[in-house]
């Protein structure tokens, strides 16, 4: 039995040794594994943050590229549209011009035809009426009219017909 209050040298030394052994044991079995694990976790978190940052940068680059592409596409589209509009306008103008030319040609031709037909009709009429007139005149005056008078009469008649027609 030792004293209740007192310092026993051997116990004193043993307890100092025990304290340092305990410090080593705690360091070895608690702090070392836990700190290693915490450090690993911290490194992983850092790596993940870095990864996220690179991914974000990539996404931003892609977004910028996409926007650039969109802008270019819009430009192209508006170019194409304006070109198409111009072409269409030119085409419509040329078509209209051609159409009006054609219409004018058709009309000219028609007019020439009509004139020709009229001339022809006049000539036919002239011959016919001349014959008829000769007959009638011959019957009416019952005398032979000289060739000269005859032609003069016809011309007079035709002239009158032409003016009335």
């Amino acid at each position: 039995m030792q004293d209740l209050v007192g310092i026993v040298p051997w116990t004193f030394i043993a307890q100092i040794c025990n304290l340092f052994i305990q410090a080593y044991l705690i360091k070895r079995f608690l702090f070392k594994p836990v700190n290693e694990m915490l450090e690993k976790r911290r490194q992983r978190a850092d790596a993940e943050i870095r990864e996220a940052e690179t991914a974000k940068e990539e996404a931003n680059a892609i977004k910028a590229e996409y926007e650039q592409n969109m802008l270019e596409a819009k430009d192209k589209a508006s170019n194409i549209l304006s070109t198409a509009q111009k072409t269409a306008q030119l085409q419509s103008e040329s078509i209209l011009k051609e159409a009006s030319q054609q219409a004018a040609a058709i009309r000219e031709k028609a007019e020439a035809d009509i004139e020709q037909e009229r001339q022809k009709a006049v000539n036919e009429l002239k011959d016919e009426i001349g014959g008829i007139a000769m007959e009638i005149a011959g019957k009416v005056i019952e005398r032979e009219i000289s060739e000269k008078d005859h032609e003069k009469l016809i011309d007079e008649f035709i002239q009158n017909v032409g003016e009335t027609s």
Partner: protein
Amino acid sequence: MDLEISGARVFLEVPIDVPFLGRFQLSETIVVSWIVMALITLTCIWLTRDLKEENISKRQAVAELLVETANNFVIGNMGEKFRYLIPFVAALFTTSVVSNLISLIGLRSPTADLSTEAGWAVVVFIMITSQKIKTNGVGGYLKDFTTPIPVMTPFNILSELATPISMACRHFGNILSGVVINALIYGALAVASSALLGLLPGALGKVLSQIPILDVGVPAVLSVYFDWFSGVMQAFIFCMLTVMYIANAAEESS
């Protein structure tokens, strides 16, 4: 009845006289210290079994909490450069707490032996002194004793020596007082229950008066203060003082 409060029992004595140290005695203090160390170390091993980086178990959360608390306590009070002292302070605190509380399972606290606290206090004192010499140099350390005036030198030496003595005695006194008061309470309650039950007539009273019924439950309430509160408090105070003294010793140079 007789009530005996004694020092640590001796289990084994080596019959060789070593000068100054005497015979080696394997005392209760040392044996229970080993039990305490085994308990702490096994708990550490159990707590840190299969640590994971994510999806952690409650066990690992406790281990991380303990490590973080120790880190914050030491680094918060002493600064980053004393990181190497974390295991020492943690060992001091856990050994102290477990030693104080092991009396709850009927073993004699190693801290109820002044040799234990004296050993710890001397270690802390050596650390404080070496830290002072490290920051101020030997000359600065010695010169520090003559401040503010040379007449104060004996008092400064006294106050320097008082540091480990007061640390050791404060801790020891609190734990020993708990042991003494617990023993007194158990004895007193045994006497009280035997007197109370002895009033019962005949053989029944004689049998029941031999059983200290009042010893069941009542001391547990008082143990909340004398063992739990006092035990944890003294461990904390001892560590706090250690940390503070060493940090102060490091700051004196600035």
